[in-house]
């Protein structure tokens, strides 16, 4: 029943990819954006089912070229290097071309970008046919030059081997080793329009990975020229826009790229991102029309208010944001499954949904509920996590903790993000009912990452997982090697589960993979840890009604890459 709700909502109010990306800002505030790894480079405002529904309340005219829009941003953009900087990923997708786009939900590649097609004679072999005539913008070291397979190769090498580049599992699967020197020989460029490589072993998440904003294709000449200086504060790409001004803490100004490979696109002459880190200030700027597109974090009441206002177009989408509580299974009492079980059924997930997510949300299993293809059915999760205080108390008794115990719940302190504390307080209240006295210990973000999370220095800790729209990543947190290959933070070790997680990452047959993923999730459920999965809500976005996104026309949104089909009725 919950699944149908999800799709109904999705059709009523559209999922915007912009919204998806801005949602990462929710947790990115204060530097947590360094966690961001996901979010695809798909098509403009594509929905999970790929369909498109115009907003019924207002008729939309034909798109017009020209004009600029201003969008608010809650997160300082530390840089726009597509391979290294994680705080400007949404902007990177407008500055650089990508191999292909990604349609979330349907989870398919869209060949609307640099690659015209992909051939996979084997599941480990990738042959990209590069689109001719994709030119760099008219500025920079490679001004006006065509993007070729060599550029793809050099970009893959940089993304796959740069020291601070995120998640390198995929490039390591290509190289067949963690040795960065082994990657280059595996990437082949038989001609300027063919780019191919074979992976040492199958790795399904790699397909999704290549559409991520961290896999932008940068001209080899640009990479060579900027060696040592980096691409954080400048950008020379072949995307729909060019970087006109970069002041990551103030504003980022993009200008239309006249060389863009799609004729007549982008519609807009430019986009200006204005950075305001205080949410209330960001909201007031939007309401006063200083920003055309809202950049603030909207909560349900505000979203409802905007939705009732004809001046605004609103949209909501299931949030891939995924809060969990880590339990340290290396330490007592969380090494006892009865205690974990008791906690799991003592937490009132509906209360969290009502109080924190405005009554809209669903239960998360090991994979968050909006990943409809991979998450366990809601009925199963709701039955499994059904609150039962009597049973919880019995479990505590039989574990020898009938009188309860004191425990510290460490949470990261993120400025302007209240829901972490809200959820922690609810858990504190819930667990008091089974005599567990939770002490909430807010830790400054830097210390939290270094001294709490990574070394596993906690009994319980709140972890604001970021939006992942591929099942491998959430499951990797349970693998004994963790997401980094250096071990998980909770000391959890289960060989059967490791095998299942590895098996799903190798299985290209989707139904078979789904089966393995479900098996892995059910195994995790039975363990009642190491993550206490909670609930997920919706994310809300809004813009003024003179700004339009392609879905409002009811056309197939999968046509063009992100950002090129946005238009405005207002002249600059």
């Amino acid at each position, binding site marked *: 029943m919950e699944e149908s709700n999800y799709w109904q909502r999705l059709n009523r109010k559209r999922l915007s990819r912009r919204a998806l990306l801005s949602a990462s800002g929710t947790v990115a505030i204060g530097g947590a954006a*360094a966690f961001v790894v996901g979010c695809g480079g798909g098509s403009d405002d594509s929905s999970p089912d790929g369909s498109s529904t115009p907003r019924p309340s207002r008729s939309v005219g034909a798109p017009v070229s020209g004009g600029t829009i201003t969008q608010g941003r809650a997160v300082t953009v530390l*840089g726009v290097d597509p391979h290294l900087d994680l705080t400007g990923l949404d902007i990177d997708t407008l500055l650089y071309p990508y191999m292909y786009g990604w349609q979330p939900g349907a989870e398919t590649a869209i060949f609307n970008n640099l690659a015209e097609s992909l051939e996979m004679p084997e599941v480990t072999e990738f042959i990209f046919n590069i689109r001719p005539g994709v030119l760099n913008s008219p500025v920079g070291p490679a001004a006006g030059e065509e993007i070729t397979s060599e550029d793809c190769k050099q970009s893959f090498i940089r993304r796959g081997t740069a020291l601070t580049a995120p998640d390198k599992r995929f490039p390591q699967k290509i190289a067949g080793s963690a040795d960065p020197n082994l990657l280059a020989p595996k990437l082949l460029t038989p001609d300027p329009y063919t780019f191919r490589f074979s992976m040492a072993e199958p790795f399904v998440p790699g397909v999704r990975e290549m559409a991520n904003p961290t896999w932008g294709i940068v001209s080899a000449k640009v990479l060579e020229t900027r060696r040592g200086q980096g691409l954080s504060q400048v950008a020379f790409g072949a995307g729909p826009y060019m970087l006109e001004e970069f002041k990551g*803490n103030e504003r980022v100004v993009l200008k239309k790229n006249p060389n863009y490979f799609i004729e007549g696109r982008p519609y807009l002459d430019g986009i200006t991102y*204005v950075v*305001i880190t*205080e949410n209330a200030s960001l909201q007031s700027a939007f*309401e*006063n029309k*200083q920003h055309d597109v809202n950049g603030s974090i909207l909560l349900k009441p505000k979203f409802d208010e905007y939705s009732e206002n004809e001046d605004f177009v609103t949209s909501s989408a299931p949030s891939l944001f995924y809060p969990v509580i880590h339990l340290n299974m290396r330490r007592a009492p969380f090494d006892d499954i009865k205690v974990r079980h008791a906690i799991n059924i003592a937490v009132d997930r509906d209360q969290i949904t009502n109080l924190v997510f405005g009554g809209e949300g669903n239960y998360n299993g090991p994979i968050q509920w909006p990943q409809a293809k991979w998450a366990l059915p809601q009925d199963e999760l709701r039955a499994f996590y059904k609150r039962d205080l009597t049973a919880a108390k019995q479990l505590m008794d039989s574990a020898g903790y009938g009188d309860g115990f004191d425990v510290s719940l460490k949470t990261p302190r993120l400025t302007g993000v209240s829901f972490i504390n809200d959820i922690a307080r609810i858990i504190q209240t819930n667990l008091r009912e089974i005599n567990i006295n939770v002490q909430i210990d807010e830790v400054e973000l830097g210390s939290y990452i270094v001294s709490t999370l990574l070394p596993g220095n906690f009994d319980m800790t709140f972890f604001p997982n970021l939006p992942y729209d591929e099942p491998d990543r959430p499951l990797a947190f349970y693998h004994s090697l963790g*997401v980094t290959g250096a071990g998980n933070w909770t000391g959890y070790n289960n060989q059967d589960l490791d095998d299942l997680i590895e098996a799903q990452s190798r299985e290209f047959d989707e139904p078979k993979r789904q089966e393995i993923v479900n098996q892995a999730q059910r195994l995790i459920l039975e363990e009642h840890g190491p993550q206490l999965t909670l609930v997920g809500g919706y994310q809300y976005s809004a813009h003024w009604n003179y700004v339009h996104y392609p879905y409002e026309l009811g056309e197939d949104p999968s046509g063009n890459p992100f950002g090129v089909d946005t238009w405005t009725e207002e002249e600059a």
Partner: protein
Amino acid sequence: MRTYILRRLLLIPLIMLLVSFMTHSTFRIIPGSVAEIKCGLQCTPQLIADTKHEYGLDRGFFEQYGSWLGVYTNEDGKVSGVLQGNFGKSFLTTLSVDGEIQDRLPVTLELMALALILSLLMGIPPGIISAIRPGTPLDWVVRVASVLWISVPSFYLGILIITFGASWFGWSPPNFETGRAVPITEDPIKNLQTYFFPALVLSLGIAAVIMRLTRSSLLEVMRNDYIRTAWSKGLRERSIVWRHALKNAMIPVLTIIGLQVGGLIGGSVIIESVFALNGMGNYLLVSIIARDLLVVQSLVLLFAFVYVLINLIVDVGYAWLDPRIRYG
């Protein structure tokens, strides 16, 4: 006096050295470094070590501190640091700290200057009125207002102004639209629209302190014999207050003004964030969170310098206010 000023000026480098040394030491003690922040969840011991090496963070305490100071070679083998006028580069953004300071310092200075002016305007005259009309309704209003201003946190007041300014009057600061404050030389009206409310918010707490101190100090002076003599000589109230009482009453007020500059610096960190002003306070906040050592060291040094300098000016101001005060 000249000797005193010279001695104080000569002490400044030593104070700066101590401040920077303490900042560097603190960063060594607190957990985390920019390397871990950069790596985020990808952190492995090896990656952290490699990143630290890349940034030169694996060098010894004195090597790192010395190279920032400019008395030791940096990772490029050059001697170039604060003493040579080079504050280094941000680890996080790779931007030069000097450039960032040049961009941001005018923002914070204008905010602080305006806040100081407002706090003096809102502190001293009501304090005087309150002192010369004690027990009157006016005195009560001033005292209640001062308690209110001290009690309400400035960030909360800032958010109220932003929120209700938008929903009631459709107003928000002009810099919200462009992302930057218009310089006063370019458009004084827009500049004032941008800075007035943050400065007002920042000044209220300080104004309240100044107001209360002016009141109590003036009340005390007004009870002195020489004031009674002035009254008995038939001098007018205005003359007694302005020519005889106020100057003496201002000495403790001046001390407080000097100390409150520290509060202004601290307050600017929050207020700049609320009003989206990209000044030094905002920069410091982001850099502390990101453990951007060179930036934090440089900014703390600069703030300390401003603080020390203002307090020197205050000390010199005593002598001007009270000729009896002589520095040897």
